[in-house]
């Protein structure tokens, strides 16, 4: 191994993988020079080891309350053979961490963790090569324990090997370093306790909402009473009695206040009198689905096309079945409303927020203020769970706008009404499905998903402050990859699935946990159940009949869910139910994005026929995400995804009038409470020698359909409109009677 004179020389030395440590200087110096590598193709972008042997990880994927601040260091500590408590994590800082993409789609382990693991394995190979030289030993004689390499009685630590320098090693994520044999893992696969929990239960953890910088002021936004309203006048005298007001900031239709204290800012925002124009841009909520169906279609995206469905459906003697499903508009509903701090200093903006995509936010803020991206640094600080793109980025833009106006750092904390009223929404989804059945064989399946368009090449949800202030914002529509799981895992001879991409959707859309996959799987897995019932077949057997026989992992998951739930094999609905409260069981299956994590669920429900109340009593889940990194973390995430989705399925629906959102608190947008929590039972299939896939949101995909199918089993009535409110249940029963 060569020790190069400088990092620059190393880079000049050609594109080949250079196994070396550069003498460019200690990591601290490198950072001071603004030279921290960020490219995905360099080890130094992802990790550093200091002279004391402390490993610092630089992760573009961030912990949104999901536990990856434990799981990612767990993967790297295992790969490097260092103790977990010697690994430090830096997350989501645009000056320090590589852009590994937004933290979404349950990809933090699958993509982010695998890139970190590759960096660690590459670094370790170089460390061992160097250690072999220094110890005068062969590589296969070396042992590594707690970051110390030994050969016989000779030892050298990682800290000594690195000598305070940075690595200068290339990475190719398409050809990752071999790394450890999974059978040698000591931490991966173990229920390592989360590193953040002790501080979180004792009030020592610094959330975004707790963060402050010297000289910081407190800001609040005053949003228009109607979407699209114009700010006509502001009466600053209306807050002359509020102590400590620094400034009323008005920029176009953006209105905010800045005060010395947080309470001062709250009172000023409440009392400030402003007059706004009337605006009614929203559809009549009672006719939402007509509106969605009548929306202009900009593109029909065919997501699968096998055989010829039109021909199969035109065959004489086939029986046609069809159904329409809808799924309400949902809000993220973070318990802590969005919060951010911003500071302009020497013409540069620093933004602290809980953004799940700081690299994207950086570009958006640069656009908004007409600066180069180099002038903006976005730093992630964990906040309240967001479950997708909630208001965090918007609060960051609010804080930046206010900070610029007062030329001091400003913290913006949204109110509950700001969060419920103004976070981007999960768009309404409407699905039509039909199938042709010839004898006892399903011969054709056709579906159309009415979903908003996705602005090509952009996942930037426009920032509210930029839009209101008339600053450069872009008018992107970014609902996320909501087309996924519109195609189906079942092998019918003729299949055509189409996403009808709509030009508009009532609210600024974004992704909320399991975007699209949830709505699409709900429709698909309800309709397959309808076909099973029409065929008088057991719903599990019916699915197995049409699953790809070569997809063994999928078949195993479905069988294991049935075994876990002691599945009562028979067609639905259940016969001879007596009494007011009746029970049912329903199954649902999903291969996430038809490419990764397999999940199958069985829901058991009670339905009170007199009131239409549904109670999920037990929820069983069989889950195959390949290699499990942290089984306890996985269970925690499954709990969360199942419980949150039961809430969305049974209760949640955004309320609005023609002007604005009206469900602005937890009374008007209720969520599931403790007494309504089911028993949760899991079968986690661990495959240590397979690559790890995403876990968390795949589990949410199967919840709405499992519940709908269980309700059908109980009362013989199909629920095709989420949420399954009691009034819809009783109406459906009346309709069926």
């Amino acid at each position, binding site marked *: 191994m060569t020790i190069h004179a400088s990092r620059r020389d190393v880079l000049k030395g050609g594109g080949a993988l250079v196994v070396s440590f550069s003498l460019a200087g200690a990591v601290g110096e490198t950072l001071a020079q603004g030279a921290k590598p960020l490219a995905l193709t360099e080890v130094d972008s992802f990790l550093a080891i200091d002279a004391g042997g402390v490993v610092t990880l630089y992760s573009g994927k961030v912990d949104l309350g999901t536990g990856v601040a434990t799981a990612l260091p767990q993967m790297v500590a295992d790969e490097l053979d260092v103790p977990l408590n010697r690994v430090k994590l830096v997350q989501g800082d645009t000056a320090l961490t590589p852009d590994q993409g937004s933290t979404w789609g349950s990809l933090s382990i699958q993509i982010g963790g695998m890139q970190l693991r590759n960096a660690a394995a590459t670094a370790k190979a170089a460390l061992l090569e160097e250690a072999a030289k220094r110890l005068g030993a062969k590589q296969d004689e070396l042992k590594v324990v707690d970051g110390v390499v030994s050969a016989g009685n000779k030892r050298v630590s990682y800290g000594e090997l690195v000598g305070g320098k940075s690595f200068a090693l290339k990475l190719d994520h398409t050809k990752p370093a071999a790394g450890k044999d999974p059978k040698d893992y000591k931490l991966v696969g173990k229920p390592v306790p989360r590193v953040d929990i002790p501080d979180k239960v004792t009030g020592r953890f610094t959330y975004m909402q707790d963060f402050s910088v010297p000289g910081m002021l407190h800001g609040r936004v005053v949003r228009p009473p109607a979407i699209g309203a114009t700010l006509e006048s502001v009466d600053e005298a209306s807050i002359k009695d509020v*102590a400590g007001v620094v400034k009323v900031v008005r920029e176009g239709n953006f209105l905010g206040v800045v005060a010395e204290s947080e309470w001062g800012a709250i009172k000023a925002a409440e009392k400030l009198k402003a007059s706004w124009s009337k605006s009614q841009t929203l559809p009549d909520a009672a006719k939402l689905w007509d509106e969605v169906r009548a929306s202009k279609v900009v593109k029909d995206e065919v997501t699968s096309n096998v055989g010829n469905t039109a021909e199969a459906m035109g065959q004489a003697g086939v029986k046609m079945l069809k159904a329409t499903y809808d799924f309400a508009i949902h809000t993220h509903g973070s318990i802590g409303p969005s919060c951010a701090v911003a500071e302009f200093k020497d013409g540069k903006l620093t933004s602290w927020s809980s953004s799940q995509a700081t690299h994207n936010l950086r570009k958006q803020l640069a656009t908004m203020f007409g600066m180069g991206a180099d002038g903006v640094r976005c730093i992630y600080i964990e906040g309240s769970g967001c479950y997708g793109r909630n208001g965090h980025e918007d609060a960051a833009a609010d804080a930046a706008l206010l900070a610029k106006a007062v030329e001091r750092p400003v913290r913006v904390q949204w109110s509950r009404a700001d969060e419920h009223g103004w976070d981007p929404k999960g768009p309404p989804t409407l699905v039509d499905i039909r199938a042709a059945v010839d004898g006892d064989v399903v011969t054709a399946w056709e579906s159309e998903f009415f979903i908003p368009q996705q602005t090509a090449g952009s996942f930037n949800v426009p920032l509210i402050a930029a839009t209101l202030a008339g600053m450069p914002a872009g008018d992107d529509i970014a609902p996320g990859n909501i087309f996924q799981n519109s195609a189906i895992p079942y092998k019918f001879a003729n299949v055509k699935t189409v996403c009808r991409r709509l030009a508009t959707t009532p609210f600024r859309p974004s992704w909320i946990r399991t975007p699209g996959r949830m709505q699409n799987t709900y429709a698909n897995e309800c309709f397959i159940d309808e076909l099973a019932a029409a065929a008088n077949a057991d719903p599990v057997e019916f699915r197995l009949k049409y699953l790809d026989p070569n997809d063994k992992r999928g078949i195993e998951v479905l069988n294991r869910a049935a075994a876990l739930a002691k599945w009562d094999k028979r067609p639905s609905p259940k016969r001879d139910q007596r009494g007011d409260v009746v029970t049912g069981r329903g199954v649902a299956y999903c291969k996430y994005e038809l490419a990764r994590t397999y999940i199958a669920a069985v829901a058991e429900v009670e339905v009170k026929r007199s009131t239409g109340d549904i109670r999920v009593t037990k929820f069983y889940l069989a889950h195959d995400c390949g290699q499990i990194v942290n089984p306890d973390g996985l269970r925690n995430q499954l709990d969360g995804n199942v419980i949150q989705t039961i809430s969305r399925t049974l209760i949640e629906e955004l309320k609005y009038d023609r002007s604005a959102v009206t469900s602005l608190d937890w009374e008007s947008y209720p969520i599931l409470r403790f007494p309504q929590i089911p028993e949760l039972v899991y079968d986690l299939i661990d495959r240590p020698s397979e690559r790890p896939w995403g876990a968390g949101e795949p589990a949410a995909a199967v919840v709405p359909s499992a519940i709908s199918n269980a309700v059908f089993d109980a009362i013989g009535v199909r629920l095709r409109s989420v949420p399954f409110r009691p009034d819809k249940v009783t109406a459906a029963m009346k309709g069926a009677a």
Partner: protein
Amino acid sequence: MAQRKSLNVNGKAVRITIDDPAMPLLYALRDNLALHGPRFGCGLAQCGACTVHVDGKAVRSCVTPLSSLTAQQKVVTLEGLGTPQRLHPVQRAFIEEQAVQCGYCINGMIMESAAFLAKTKKPTEAQVKDALANNLCRCGTHARVVKAVMRAAGA
């Protein structure tokens, strides 16, 4: 007008300067005393994230005006309930059950259940769920929270 207000917080007498006696206790704790255990969630007493104890009772600090508190009333926050070195049994149980996802609501869960367990020694699971019915969690940590509270109760 700036004025002084005396409080008893986590066993200590403290004096703070405030502009408005109607300011909720939450802001005095967070902004004047840098106690970040209690959290802002709704400001409406709907979610429970801001819960503290006042004379042993679980109280929503986001709607408790400072003017309603005397210097003698004992306010206890999550930080005062137990420390990393001397954990309260409920805090210890939350760690043992790993009953946290984002953890933003967890202050309320712990403070509410600590007050509940002080008067209900051997609760059933149903009683625990009822006691926490007005504490909201969005991550879906409920099942672990119930296990943690049952563990703390020694059940």
